[in-house]
């Protein structure tokens, strides 16, 4: 086999089987963490700090939207979970204080 064919073959294995295997392992490990949190404290925060900021930004931009009540419900669910639960699923160590500290 030519060197270029070997390089492409190895790169393909890494790009496909490597990525797929990593995705499978990470996904299953995260699911185990979620299940552990569900067992120990009943629930966990549904949004990561960045995703939660998007949620708040959406509400700021569309306060009168017909969909705003649904988004507000989810914002509240997130805040309730952050207040109620001592353990987090997402890493909040770098999140802004206004996001981490639920009112």
């Amino acid at each position, binding site marked *: *086999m030519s060197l270029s064919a070997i390089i492409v073959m190895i790169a393909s*294995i890494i790009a496909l089987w490597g990525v*797929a295997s990593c*995705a499978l392992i990470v*996904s299953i490990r*995260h699911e185990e963490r979620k299940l552990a949190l569900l067992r120990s404290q009943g629930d966990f925060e*549904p949004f990561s700090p960045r995703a939660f900021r998007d*949620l708040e930004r*959406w509400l700021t931009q569309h306060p009168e939207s017909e969909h705003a009540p*649904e988004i507000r419900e989810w914002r509240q669910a997130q805040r309730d979970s952050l207040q109620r639960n001592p353990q987090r699923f997402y890493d909040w160590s770098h999140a802004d204080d206004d996001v981490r500290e639920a009112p």
Partner: protein
Amino acid sequence: MTTTISREQWGSRFGYLMAVVGAMVGAGNIWRMPYVTGENGGGAFLIAYFLLLYLIAVPGLMGETSLGRYTRQGLIGTFRKVYGNNRLVGLGLVILIFNIVLMSYYSSIVGWSIYYAFHAVLGTFTQTDFDTAALWQDFSGNTALNVGMHTIAMLMVTGILLFGIKGGIERMAKWMMPILTIALIAIAIRGVTLPGAMAGLEFAFSPNWEYLARGETWLAALGQALFSTGLGWGIALTYGSYLGRNDDIPLGGGIFTAVGNTSFGLLAIFAVFPIVFAFGISPSSGAELAFVALANAFGSMTGGYFWALLFFMGFFFANLTTAIAITEVGVTTYREERNTSRTKAVLTICGIIWLLGIPSAMNANILGYLDFVVGNWGLPLSTFITMLAIGWKFDAHRLRVLSLNRGADLYVPRVWELVIRYQIPAIMLGIMAYFLYSNLGQTPWKTISGLVILTLMIPLCMWIMNRRHDTPHVANSTGGQSS
């Protein structure tokens, strides 16, 4: 959080991931991708393919799965939630009909793989001087046998679907996909150790960079990336509708599904081409590759019985898990729309598919015609409709904020919305226009008749759904956003 619902869910993360990747891995991964790769510049094709996979298939699957998880409904129920109670819900019916037509002839392909798996069990291919071309010709010409295999295929699909999402689909996928993986790895290891096998890998992986400048290479890569992942056909949406509200989608439903599916194509390259080249067989694709060339090669190999058994059982599993997924789209939708039991929905949808599939089982030309119409326009149109519904009507931004990034293992940034809104619909329109342009001169009757059928189908489906909404509709009990 509108209503509380009672809806079956996947039993485990591993089960969902195996089911969804099993849905995408089908005959095309095994008997098409190796040949398409080799014919379109090898490594150059793979680079084009990876780019398109990450730019289109991964974001598209994230969106479709996310919408299904949000609405927790089948195809028509999802379109009703997106468009409201009006005739545009008929667009969901259009996709459903494509699924049913697709399954009506895919069932015949499942039947072929059952027939060959059966012969592999019997050890037919390792008989002295056995003629695999004659077996394929005899089988192809035997109408009753083809209808019989189509019937057996539909009975198997029916039997599995009767056990439900968790007890049927998930349980089967959890066994079949690992077995398929092991089977292909074992065949690949055996294949690359054969004398002359490296020429097969050279054919598949040697990069001809000039192919990257050819439009055909990109079109072939695009076709493989889209059709292999089944983007926009309602499968990811239906499977996503059985996810829990805090389950991850971007990593599992997006990246793993698309990349995992392609990984099977890569594995097929390792499993198929070394053997093809080691035995001096001309590289090809489709039924001729699997049922004639490879069957012949297995018969000539040491331990050929074992290798043929592994390959054809794996091929059968790949086809069956895809058939189950395509049929489930109809089952979930019918059950919700008619507010009926799963058993009745399974028997009805499988019965309809079985009846519609008889002409394709009897006549290969009908199968070819349906594949031409559905493959060239039906499926790209389905993807186009689904992406418009997600990107524009539902609003990609709202879906990303509300559903896609909820419980996500990976944060999906705003650029995803542009892909869903502009990139994928534009590419789908381009594909349909190209197919029209390239087919009109070569097969004008097939092209025009296919287009007429499609053109009539959209207003007809919209009219049907409009009429249905004019009559009092019983809101089904399985809808709602959260549990």
